[in-house]
């Protein structure tokens, strides 16, 4: 069995990719996908520790996390759809009407 650190490294890499994407990308959809990456990185960590300590709590928690991600994606994409309808693109830089 692989040591738990391997899983953690993979998860860290995935998380960094996600965080980097959120910080740099412009497209709303891409940012949403990067958020999913970050969430999944966390899920990997949870599963890794759950199997490492032979406990079921982590597994249950991941299920919650996935459900939450689904809900977040549903709302996020709905918002992006309505933005697309009014602006004809989903470039986040253009959405600043609440700014000073």
């Amino acid at each position, binding site marked *: 069995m692989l040591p738990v650190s391997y899983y953690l490294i993979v998860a860290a890499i995935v998380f960094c990719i996600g965080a980097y994407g959120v910080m740099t990308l412009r497209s709303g959809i891409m940012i949403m996908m990067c958020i999913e990456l970050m969430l999944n990185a966390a899920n990997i960590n949870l599963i890794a520790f759950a199997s490492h300590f032979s406990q079921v709590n982590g597994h249950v928690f991941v299920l919650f996390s996935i459900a939450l991600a689904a809900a977040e994606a549903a709302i996020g994409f709905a918002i992006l759809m309505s933005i697309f309808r009014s602006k004809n693109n989903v470039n986040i830089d253009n959405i600043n009407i609440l700014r*000073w």
Partner: protein
Amino acid sequence: MAVDNIVFLIPALPVLAFVLTLAFGKKLPSGGGYIPILAIAISCIISILAFLQIHSTDIPIPIEVSAHWFSVLNVGIFIDPLASVMLLMVSFVSLLIHIYAIGYMAHDPGKPRYFAETALFTAAMLGVVLADNILQFFISWELVGLCSYLLIGFWFRKPTAAAAGKKAFLTTRVGDVLFLAGIVILYSSMRDVFLERFPAGIPDGTYLLQFSTIFENISHIDPTHLTIITLLFFGGAVGKSGQFPLHVWLPDAMEGPTTVSALIHAATMVTAGVYLVARTFPMFIASPAVELAGITIPATLTVVAYIGGFTALFASTMGLVMNDLKRVLAFSTISQLGYMMLALGMGSVIGAAAVGFAMFHLINHAFFKACLFLCAGSVIHSTGTNDLREMGGLMSKMKITGITMLFASLALAGIGIPFINKIVGFPVGTSGFVSKDAIILDATYVFSHMTHDWIPFAFGILAALLTAIYTFRLWFMAFTGKPRQERHPHESPATMTGVLSILAIFALVFGMLTFHPFLDFVGHTYDSHEIEHLAGLGGNPILEHPDHEIHHIVDTASPIIILLPVIVGVGGLLLAWIIYNRRWISVASIGNMRNPIFKILAKRYYQHEIFIELISMKFTYGVLALTGEFSDRKIVDGIIDGISSFIIGGAEVLKKIQTGVVQNYATATVLGVGLIALILSFKGVI
């Protein structure tokens, strides 16, 4: 004791008349003027009943009616000899003036308003007289001030009348504020006194501001407080009674109808100040000279005497040169009120008898001054001018007015026959002679023999000379000589001349007939209050039997002193006759602007310049108001504005952080989390 139950009607009926006249006056004949006349007539009758009841016993028993108001205050009516004579005078003179006004105001469209306001004016003054506590006194006092404002500015479309009303209101208000401050200090002093006596709480039925309660507790009040309280009260009296330096409103108050001037000057307003001092006389006599913050404040009665004496002289000098008929009379009122204050000030030596002298002069003055004003009204009514220079020779056209005014003038100048009182048992002369000479003579002896102070006497005697001169100057200029302008004067209607005749008779004989009974009666006012003991508190060297001692002093005095007031009276008459009737001395040679004395008098001592331009415009507006405005606008507002602009400026900078770019926020979040992680790891937590 039926009178006790109806005395409340005395002020209530005129108030009712005020309401009725205001509401229905337009639909009634004479603008509803008969309603106030009826109401005041009934008030007058009740006043007479009350007087008779008090007078029926040897030692007068005051009528007292009192009801709980709230907390430690009450409302009530208190009629002792002092209040009762005042009540008679106010209701009677006011009644006569109202009857006269029916004729005088016949052609004025504002009659309902006029009669309503004069009814309220009378009611307020009756309220002042009847009050049994100082708060009720103050409320009525303020109502008097309000009515005077309304009536002086009766012809409010005339700018000078509106301004005069405002001036009267504001000037008397200065005094009123002092008076109110005095009441506040009195209240707190009285509460302290009672809380010391009753630590468990003030018992029910004790009313702190009731006159009787105050007088009983004078000796417990801190002397310094007492002097301050009485000085503040006197400040109120100075404002109301037109004493120096708050006399400036009275001459301007001539802008109202002449009947209003008569009401103000004789019955309802200016006497309130004298009455206040007389009413709270036990407090005044118990006020000692005190040292406050290194300044010695003299005993209040000394201040009263000096202010009174000075005002008597000061006002009469200005009366000499006025050309407006009513202004001459206004200055004479100020001057005569000065005499009353001087008389009250003598209380420091002769005790409560001083109240009798002051009130006697007040009542006599009310009769002859009402008569003078109403005569002036009659003259103005028929000639249509106030200016003495445009009159002349009116005697042939207006006999009744001329003769009644002559009688009243003789009374004002104080013409009478001295020494005869030893033969017939009472003084013989006009009422002004009887009361004013009593004051001057007593002042002579009081101040020369007791306090070795001649100044108040000198004020009094000089003022008497000037009074005689200006009074007869007025009469000779108006009624004798040739008409100086083409006018068509006519005698006034019977309602007016009838009133004039009644008042003239009173002016002639009232003083003669009532001198001793009056002083006896009013002298009983403060019998129960141990004036000697209070005078001791105030450090006033009061005589033990003032009546006897004064009689003794007067009897043994050199005749020249007794003759002096009459000499100056007759001398003034002759001087006026020489200058203004025979014209042996040219008026123009004295009365022109090149004569510095005339100039300063005609300019009224530059009071307008000093009060209005220097004090109010330069000092109050220029210094105080503008400083206030500067500190408000620049300093107070500046601090507020500074804080807000600092916050707005800061926000301008800080809001740039909110870029609206999601990536920036995400970056900040990640960096922040990273920073926290770093800090925690350095601390060894993770």
